[in-house]
């Protein structure tokens, strides 16, 4: 049987196109991204063998969250089942953030994405009602993290307060934070480690798997902030078994979506 690396070496779609990517983006950003189209994104999914990507808008760092959600909605409707949406919520008022999430879930969004580059920590009271709703619905909540002490303290606090969310720690291992990510994933069954990291240090995926177990690591590309075709390589080329790679590339994400009663549509 051909290994995943052998398949990738030939540029062929992986795993009968069953890969799930839980960390994607949509929309314009400050740096140049040469193709901003949903069609271009789906073309990449097809080539690599990604069934679905869950995207949030680049406005996740800004107060234009709702406008960003509108653009993501359009993309999800243009490509049902292939592009799924994380809702953004800006914490002006806690009730408003919850209302925005509730509205977007009604439109088919599948989770919540928060980013702290806006200077607002995830334990800000303005996020509380939205996080409570995410907890009620057992949603995946993708949190941008970069290995800071504050990141770990706040994720630990949220994980304790919202036991039914699936918290995805984006960029696990960045900022030399692999050991603390592993520790948190070990402390909480519902904390997962996301692989998105532009530089992709050699050995990081192996370290996360050795420390936290393959069942706690999920594939996230950060596409199209990064290149999905590049980010997939760190999992495919890592020195772990193909069974573990399959967990990271699909199995764990399937379980996370399933617990929120989300079943991505089959590829048409």
């Amino acid at each position, binding site marked *: 049987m051909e290994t995943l690396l052998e398949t990738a070496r030939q*540029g062929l779609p992986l795993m009968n196109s069953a890969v799930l990517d839980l960390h994607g983006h949509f929309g314009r950003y400050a740096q140049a*991204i*040469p*193709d901003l189209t949903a069609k271009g994104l789906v073309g990449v999914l097809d080539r690599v063998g990604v069934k679905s990507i869950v995207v949030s808008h680049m406005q996740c760092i800004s107060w234009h969250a709702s406008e960003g959600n509108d653009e993501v909605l359009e993309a999800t409707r243009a490509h049902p089942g292939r592009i799924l949406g994380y809702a953004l919520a800006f914490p002006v008022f806690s009730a408003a953030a919850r209302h925005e999430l509730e509205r977007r879930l009604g439109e088919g969004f599948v989770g919540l994405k928060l980013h702290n580059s806006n200077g607002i920590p995830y334990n800000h009271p303005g996020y509380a009602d939205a996080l409570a709703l995410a907890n009620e619905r057992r949603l995946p909540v993708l949190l941008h993290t970069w290995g800071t002490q504050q990141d770990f303290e706040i994720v630990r606090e949220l994980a304790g307060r919202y036991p039914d969310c699936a918290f995805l720690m984006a960029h696990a291992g960045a900022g030399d934070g692999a050991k603390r990510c592993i520790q948190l994933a070990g402390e909480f069954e519902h904390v997962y480690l996301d692989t998105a990291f*532009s530089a*992709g240090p050699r050995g990081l995926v192996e370290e996360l798997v050795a420390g936290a177990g393959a069942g706690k690591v999920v594939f996230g590309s950060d596409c199209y902030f990064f290149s999905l075709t590049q980010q*997939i*390589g760190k999992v*495919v080329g890592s020195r772990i078994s193909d069974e573990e790679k399959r967990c990271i590339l699909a199995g764990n994400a399937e379980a996370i979506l399933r617990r929120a009663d989300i079943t991505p549509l089959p590829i048409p």
Partner: protein
Amino acid sequence: MTTRLFDIQTGFGGVKKGQTTPIALEDCLETMAKLGIAKALVRIIPDAQEVDVCMANDRLFGACAKHPELVPCPIAVPATGRDLPDEDTQVVGFLDHNSGAAVIRPAQDYWQLTPWGSDDLFKAMAGRALPLVCPGGYVSLRDIGAIAGRFPDLPLIATEVGYRDHRTILPLLETFPNVHLSIGNNWTVHRGLEKTIEAIGPEQLLFGTGFPAAEPTMALTQLMYADISDEHRRLIAAGNMERLQNARVIQ
């Protein structure tokens, strides 16, 4: 047919600060075998502790002599301090050891990229068409443009270019056909290969992995999954670098 690969951004033999074990040559060779990489332009990396360029280059030449799949990329330094062989002698020596390029690291070796402080080196390299590797940590894109403009016959290779630099790298490549881009770490641009080829063609793009710092499979999948023609893929994978190698003036 498997695409032939020539990795232009890799190396071995150096020790990272705070670590005690160098990156083993065998590790580099095993990685090449695992990914099916036929040839590699190799440097001594990490290089922060390589303070004697002559010793570093001799170690590199010694290792490459035993492995024909490895093409050395020694460190070049302007002879402005009168402590090293003159620039022509350096370049001839590099070519005698079948070097495929030479790398510069101005801050590390205490010199500056001023015309009066470095052009004798670039003139010597341009005269023999020996490519100049410019790692992002040492040479800015602005400096690459300045060198490329002064020496249009000197092939330059920008490595370690960041994904946020796309607004700058594209006009740099467009303006200076002698500048080449390694697609390795950390150039992770969504549909970057496709759109760059649309803008300037495939001739200035080179396959590089960023080993040992980065997981090298990332550059491989970025190339293999790109929506480009097989002909263009072959050029980036190895053809463009082989063209640069064949253009060297070896006497």
